[in-house]
């Protein structure tokens, strides 16, 4: 017997409980009007008893490791007690089914609790992930000092396997990774910022309704393309193109370059920027535009001098969200930016980013307590904080701006 069978049994019992409750209330209804409709009595019986059983199982697993494993055949007790819990609770509830029993209110309460539990789950999981990352990072920082990690400029995470091995002492200076990340994000924003913003302006202010209805969904398709596809687009089309163009100008450009990755990432986040900007530009009240047009400003003057300034906080918020997207993006950079941790601001060179290194560190056979593996958690932690702060600032700005016009 295993757990899935237990759950199956609980389900069957639950359904029977429903009908038992229903039946009793139908009988009761014959002599006097009930507080709720009969199906509620069935539901409350089914809910109460199956939830008690499930709750019991959860409780069991929480304390199992600490107390119960001493018992022989302890799992059998679980099955037994689960059924007992089910029965006790169903009998108690069954007895409660009387004319004045407020089954409907009770069902309502249980539904509310279930919904609350689901919404807490997301938060709990976030906290759990966060804690485990912190925990693993902490182990990393026990071997490598945090200052070396944050301020070191040399990254080569190979640890010596044997004591006497030469030339492979690990270095965990994360600075090149962060400069690489920011370089690529910067290039991406140079593409996505202006293009996204201008397309938003076109769509919201100039395009006829018909054009808008066609163009808007099309740009949103861009957002739906899997990032792997962007990645090989970068490798196969953009990188060779950049290299060849560079040669024409007598520039030596690596076949994997920050520029190629940044360009393609920029294309990827254009719809992101344009859709948020479009929303904020549309939120600028018509009467402000009228005010400007009404004293003889042209459309573009109105956009430049009234609409953009009025929408600016929202637009900046949108751009920050896009930046955090760019920082967290992995696939394109893995494929197009290279792996070498160069500390450089030259977009023609190969660079690497935080996310790429996390992937590299964790791919393949790993010992989970070598600093090399743990470094991934430390990188993840910093990344997590960076995007968290960016998102927080961005959402704060966006929200503040929304309030202004409501």
């Amino acid at each position, binding site marked *: 017997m295993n757990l899935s069978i237990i759950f199956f049994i609980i389900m069957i019992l639950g359904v029977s409980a429903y009908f038992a409750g229903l039946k009793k209330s139908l009988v009761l209804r014959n002599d006097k009007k009930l507080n709720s409709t009969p199906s509620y009595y069935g539901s409350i019986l089914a809910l109460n008893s199956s939830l008690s059983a499930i709750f019991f199982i959860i409780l069991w697993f929480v304390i199992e490791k600490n107390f119960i494993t001493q018992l022989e055949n302890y799992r059998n007790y679980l099955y037994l007690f689960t059924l007992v819990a089910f029965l006790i609770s169903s009998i108690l509830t069954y007895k409660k089914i009387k004319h004045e029993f407020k089954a409907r209110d009770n069902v309502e309460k249980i539904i509310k609790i279930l919904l609350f539990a689901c919404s807490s789950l997301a938060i709990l999981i976030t906290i759990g992930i966060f804690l485990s990352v912190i925990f693993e990072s902490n182990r990393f920082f026990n071997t490598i000092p945090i200052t070396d990690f944050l301020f070191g400029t040399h990254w080569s995470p190979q640890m010596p396997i044997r004591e006497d091995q030469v030339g492979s002492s690990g270095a965990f200076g994360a600075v090149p990774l962060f400069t690489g990340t920011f370089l690529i994000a910067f290039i991406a924003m140079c593409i996505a910022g202006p293009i996204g913003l201008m397309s938003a302006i076109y769509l919201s202010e100039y395009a006829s309704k018909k054009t808008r209805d066609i163009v808007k969904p099309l740009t949103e398709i861009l957002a739906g393309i899997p990032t792997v596809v962007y990645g090989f687009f970068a490798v196969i089309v953009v990188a060779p193109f950049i290299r060849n163009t560079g040669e024409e100008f007598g520039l030596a450009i690596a076949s994997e370059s920050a520029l190629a990755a940044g360009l393609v990432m920029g294309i990827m986040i254009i719809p992101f920027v344009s859709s948020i900007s479009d929303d904020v530009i549309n939120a600028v009240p018509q*009467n402000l535009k*009228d005010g400007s047009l*009404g*004293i*003889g400003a*042209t459309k573009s003057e109105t956009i430049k*001098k009234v609409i953009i*300034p*009025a929408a600016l906080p929202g637009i900046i918020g949108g751009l920050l969200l896009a930046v955090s997207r760019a920082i967290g993006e992995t696939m394109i950079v893995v494929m197009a930016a290279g792996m070498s941790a160069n500390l450089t601001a030259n977009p023609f060179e190969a660079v690497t980013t935080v996310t790429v290194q996390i992937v590299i560190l964790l791919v393949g056979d790993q010992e989970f307590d070598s600093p090399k593996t743990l470094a991934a958690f430390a990188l993840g932690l910093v990344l997590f904080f960076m995007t968290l702060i960016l998102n927080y600032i961005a959402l704060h700005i966006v929200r503040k701006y929304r309030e202004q016009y409501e």
Partner: protein
Amino acid sequence: MYNDNFMTEKNIEMADKNFDVNDQSTVDNEETVGEIHVGDPRIVAKNVDVHYGDKIAINNVSIDIGKNEVLAMIGPSGCGKSTFLRCLNRMNDTIDSCAVKGELYLDKENILDKKIDVVSLRAKVGMVFQKPNPFPKSIYENVAYGAKIHGMAKNKAELDEIVFKSLERAGLFQEVKDRLDSPGTSLSGGQQQRLCIARTIAVSPEVILMDEPCSALDPIATAKVEELIYELKENFTIVIVTHAMQQAARVSQRTAYFHLGNLVEVGPTEKIFTTPIHKLTESYITGRFG
């Protein structure tokens, strides 16, 4: 008792004329009564029709608007006052479904002509809106906005002069002279509306259109704006839409009564309010419907 009887009589009369005030789709094609023409017109409208898509909003309206006069446009809501007002500086261009037909002259120039420069038209015919709509800029920049766009000032000193003078004429200068750098939106509603008026007169228009400029203001702010309108008529032609009949009576020389897209009656304000010719005008100004 008497009143009730009177109402019923009226209703029968109107039913006789096949004119149901509650049926918004009925647009009767009646001649305007009263005095359409003035001796020295600045704006002349001839047979102006306005459609929103298939829906007719202004039906065959002809009217003169004189120099240095305040024309009040009154009528039940939805009768097309704003629509007609917005024709006068082509603001209806911003609404895709809106089509304007007929002839409309500003100083002999047909402003419905597709070829005219809408930007300079709107500089000549400024507009003040129902809800105060200062730009999210400083008080100074709000007023300087139009002057800058039209290149009216060669240097900072000239711009200052335009801004100060406009604020002065809008009766706002004393109240804001110490806080010209604070945002226009930080002013009270009435001050904001006067700021918008200052912004409009800063580009030296010839005509100022006002669409219920006081409807979002309290009585004291309203009184101030009305006083301002009264003074502005020395230099500008003013067309004001209002739903407050006392306001029309206080600020205007001529009044036009609109009903379901028709211009029913126009004449000297005093006459409209004391001895209206048309039955509909009479019912409206005596508060029968609105």
